[in-house]
Each structure stands twice: as structure tokens, then as C-alpha cells.
């Protein structure tokens, strides 16, 4: 299934975690994937990074369908595809 996925950077509202019951930020981040993934696949296998300092959010591999349902979730403020940059 990973062949039909693309990497996205998902940005979350930093206030969101305070109203949630998750013990840690990575588990809060993972919960967004668990809510959107339809397959039996382990959500953690799609999570590339969990960000806390430079940004509140995570990078994950998502299918088109998962992307659309993730956009609907409260506390998701922005989703951007991963960009390739280069040395100057």
C-alpha cells in the first residue's frame, strides 16, 4: 500500500493536545493516523516524524483518501506535501 502513498507534513493546532487525553505528543500524533487509515496496517509504520519544537505536527505517508479524511479532523490546521529542496 505504501506505493500509492505520498509524504505529507501535517500541522496541528498546538492547543489541541491540552484538551486531549494522550500521555505523549507522539501518541497524540499517531491518533490522527489511526482515525484516518482504513486498512489494518499499523499506523506507526506510516509515521515518519513527530515534531514538537520546530512545529507541532508530524510527517506521514498518506493515500489520497486518507489525506481527504485527515483534512476534516479538528486540530489539523495545514497539510503540505513534502518538498525536495537542494543545496545552494
Amino acid at each position, binding site marked *: 500500500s505504501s506505493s500509492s502513498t505520498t509524504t505529507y507534513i501535517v500541522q496541528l493546532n498546538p492547543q489541541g493536545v491540552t484538551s486531549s487525553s494522550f500521555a505523549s505528543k507522539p501518541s497524540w500524533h499517531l491518533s490522527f493516523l489511526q482515525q484516518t487509515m482504513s486498512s489494518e496496517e499499523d499506523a506507526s509504520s506510516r509515521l515518519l516524524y513527530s515534531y514538537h519544537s520546530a512545529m507541532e505536527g508530524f510527517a506521514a505517508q498518506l493515500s489520497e483518501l486518507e489525506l481527504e479524511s485527515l483534512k476534516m479532523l479538528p486540530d489539523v490546521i495545514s497539510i503540505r506535501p513534502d518538498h525536495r529542496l537542494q*543545496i545552494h
Partner: protein
Amino acid sequence: TTYSYKFLGLSLSASREGAWYKSAFGRGTIIGVLDTGVWPESPSFNDRGMPAVPKKWRGICQEGQNFNSSNCNRKLIGARFFTKGHRVATYTPDGGREYVSPRDSHGHGTHTSSTAGGATVPMASVLGNAAGVAQGMAPGAHIAVYKVCWLNGCYSSDILAAMDVAIRDGVDILSLSLGGFPIPLFDDNIAIGSFRAVEHGILVVCAAGNNGPIQSSVANEAPWITTIGASTLDRRFPGIVQMGNGKYLYGESLYPGNHLKRAGKELELVYVTSENSGSEYCFKGSLPRAKVRGKIVVCDRGVNGRAEKGEVVKEAGGAAMILANTVINQEENSIDVHVLPATLIGFKESVRLKAYINSTRRPTARIVFGGTVIGKSRAPAVAQFSARGPSYSNPSILKPDVIAPGVNIIAAWPQNLGPTGLPEDSRRVNFTIMSGTSMACPHGSGIAALIRSAHPKWSPAAIKSAVMTTAEVVDHSGKPIMDGDKPAGVFAIGAGHVNPERAIDPGLIYDIRPEDYVMHLCTLGYTKSEILTITHRNVSCREVLKMNRGFSLNYPSISVIFKHGTRSKMIKRRVTNVGSPNSIYKVEVMAPKEVNVRVKPQRLIFTHINQSLSYKVWFTSRKRTEKGKMSFAQGQLTWVNSNNSFNRVKSPFSVTW
């Protein structure tokens, strides 16, 4: 680097005075470099004489392929690698060519990190050229390397992960010699990550990009980032072409001329243009051996790599190469190490060379190598490739901020590569030459580290202000910095060329708090959701602007835009005294003829340190906006200390209709 620190006025003196002594060579400061990794065995990362690792440091030396924790020391205090974004995007992994560890497979990261904070290395050179003592701009600073760039590129998910960790590790400066094209701030992961870094007191220094001289090509343009363009040095490596007709063409080369007799010998000259195979560019396999064997081959610059063209000529049996700039490159002189005798000539020379080739049935030439020549040419000048303003996404901020040396910079190089970086090059060197805003960026980061060491409590904006307001707009001969054959404008040089000696002691600074950037985004009309994305702050711009009527971001440079028939604009600024307690500053204005500039008050009287005073500037246009036509003018506003003319705090301004 073996020379740029001297060019910038950084030196060891018997009197123990100057920026290096005032800043203890950058000791105690940690520069985080996001790049292609590091070659830890390079003498530039030797920790002899380095102080202990700062107590605040929480980073690690991450183990991986050919890299273990003992590769870090008191100079290279941290090393990590970020590969997940790259790994999932790269379908054909380049097995074996790349170290899966912080170790640098490419060379770029070793070069940039040593430029920022490399240790002192005596007798450094590139094959005998540019010999000298190599040092980084802040030779006492600690370096932490975050490998985010791989042979296939640098993925923003990896970059963001590195910034995320670097903030927690405790770096003071982040140096990013990477980027893309200018994009809106809410889509720009570097801008978003940098905002959080600045909130943590970290100064983020980025390369402006190499898409110059195209207008509005400057990248990494967020107001909280220090954006660095590239300049030239007054160091030349003559590699003069003597044509068969007895005339000379000036070129430059790093080839060690005394090693190969063929270099100085008169040989037949050939420029292969037929076959429609890219032979004029010396593409791989495009040069017929029978046509080029034993000859000096002319290759046009562009499309494929410059050093690669040399390898193609060598493989086809050519004896030497003349690399000819095209109209795009003009007189740009970024030179390279080559695998055979070679020299780079400018566009004007290339026109003369081709005219000579076409004028005779058997053209000949010889290349005369002239070694290293310092101080004979005008510099600094703007590098032709250096990205230019005005800022595409936010023209209300003048970008780039400053320029710094970025052409023909000699710095550390890994031992897995030859000096050309080509896989075919089996030579091994500790230093090589590179050009780009990538090379300018670590000059800026190193200077920022010096300021940070001298003034540990200054905010990132204060450090940036010190670098900008003390930058030079004239070259070493006292004449305007040039951009090709005309004086450089503010969209090429920003506030000017970095001057570390003056930046350590600016007298006044323009400080900016993170919340000021939020207000600035409100004034630009960014939506609530866009501001939340960029800053992670949930703000009501209506409320913010109601409480801060007439707000102007306290930026050290000024960009005035007259649009929709506006003829007058007022800008507010606030300066903080970081010099002598009792100081009086008088304003000097250089205004373009199209604009009337009035400053109030004309004098600022400070009675104590850290005192802040405000002033207002009214810009009134003397001409009307022409529909459908954009025009620019520029000037500068300088606060001069009445008792101490060393403290001249200069703000460039651009006016756009």
C-alpha cells in the same frame, strides 16, 4: 577558508585587538549546520585548544555507517542524520555511494561547516593554490552537524525534523545552505521551523539561492531569517590563454601549472559544434576522439557540471580545456579544480576566442598558469548567480539582508572524494574550492557566532541588526560595490557586505520580538489560519492592529511601496543603545531624486545603555505611479554617533512604484 577571514578583516594581531579577540573567537557558541553531513577526520574539526562542551548542550553523536560516537569531540560536538523523508521518496536507493550516517558523502556539508566554525589548519591549499592558514569565521565555536541532504536532494520532512531536534539540542545559530524557490510563508517549512527557532533565541541564517541575476529570485525570505547573498573576493588564479595570433585572453584556473608540461605548450585548439550531440557543452560521449585528441578543447559552460566537462575532454583524449562562459554567465568567475589543465574565460573573451577559431584553418593556443594573486582586483562585488530581490512573497521586507564571500571559497573536503568531486578523480585533498550562496551563508553564521559570543544576551533580531547596519556598500577601494559593470542595487546586496569588525560593536540595534512578526503578518493581510500555520499563534488581527495603530516592523532595512495612487508613507523605527551610555546620534539621509525623505527627530540623545528611542521617516513620492509599469529607487538612512564615528548605523531603503 584560507583567505576570506582576512578579506573580512579578521586576523590575529600582536595587540590582541579586533573582532576575534572581542568575541573570544566565538567560544561557547554552538553553530548547527543542516547540510550533507561532515567528514570528522578533517583537520578543520580538530579540537585542540577548544573549550569543554557547553553545559546547555543536549545533542548526541549519532552512530551509523562509518561513523561512531568517538568521531565527535570538543569542536564537532554533535552529529545526527535524518533519512526517513529521503528514503521513502527515493525509489532507487543509491546503494553504496552514500553513508547512512552523519558522514558526508558529498563534501558540501564538510565545506560549509568548516567555513562557519572550522579550526585553525596551517599550510592548507588546493593542489598548491591559495595556500595559507585555513580557519572558519568563528574558529572557537562548536559545531553540530545535522545531515538532511542526500545525493537525491534535501526533503523538507527531514529538514524540519533536524530543526526540531536542533532547537532541543541547544544550538545558538542554525546555518542552512539549502532551499528552493521563493514560496508563500505558510507553505515554507523552513520559514515555519525558523519562526519557532527564533522564539527559542536561535538565529537562523540561510543562503539566498543561486537563481540570480533574475529579479525576485531570493529564497528563504522570511523576515525572521537572515538571508545571505554571495560576493566575490579580491583573489584571482590567472590561467591566461595565449592564442596563436599572439593575443591574450584572461582566464582563471586552479591547475597546478608546473606539474604538467602540456599545460604551457602550444597546442591545436578545437571547438566541436557539429553532430547535434551537445559537443559544444562537452556532454559525455559527444566528443569524437579523432577530433580532440591531444588538443585544447573549448567547452561552453552550462547544462552539465563544469568539472564533468573536463573529465569528458580527458576521456576523449583531449590535452586541456578552455571553459567558455555563455551570455547567461557573462564574466562570472566561479572556478573549479579539474582533472586536466583547464581555464575558465568570461563571455567577452569567449566571443574573441571563437572569432579567432573561425578566422584560421589551424587555431592554436597555450594556457599560462599564473598561480594565486591577491589584492589586485576590485572586491567585493556581487556574484552574478546570487539571488536578487525584491522579495517575491513579501516585498515589504528588503531581501537579501546582506552579502558575504561566496565565490571561490576554499574550505575542508572529505577524503572519499577527489577535489573535483567526480567519482573518476582518485586524488585526495583536505581542501577544495566551491562557489554559491551556500558558501556565503556559513560566513554569515560564523560572524553571527562571534556576535553571539561577544553579546550572549542579544536576541536573534539584535544580532541580525548588528550584521546588517554595519555592512559596507563600498568595496575595498572605497568605490561602490559592483554588480557586473554597474553599481550594485539594494536588491542585489541588501544592507551591503558583512563587516565583522564593526558588527561586534554596532552602537545601536533594531530589536524585534517574535510577537512583532505576528503583527507584521497582520499588516500584510495574512488570514488568521495562515498566521496560525506560520507562527502557531491564534491571533485576532483586528484586535492586534487596533492596539498597535500605524505599526511598522522594526526591521533594520526599509522597503517603501507606493501603490493605488499613494504618494506618502510614514515608517516608524526604534533603536536601542548598546554602545556608550551617553551617546548622541545624528541622522544622515541619502535620498533618490524621485523621493523626498524627512526624518523626525534629527538627533537621538541616549543617556544610558539599553535605552530605546523611536523615530519616524516620511517618504513622499515626487512622481506618479505609472499604470502597468514597476519602477524602483533606493537610498540610505544612517545614524552617526557624534562622538565616535565608528558607530554608523545604516539602513538601506528601497522605494517601489
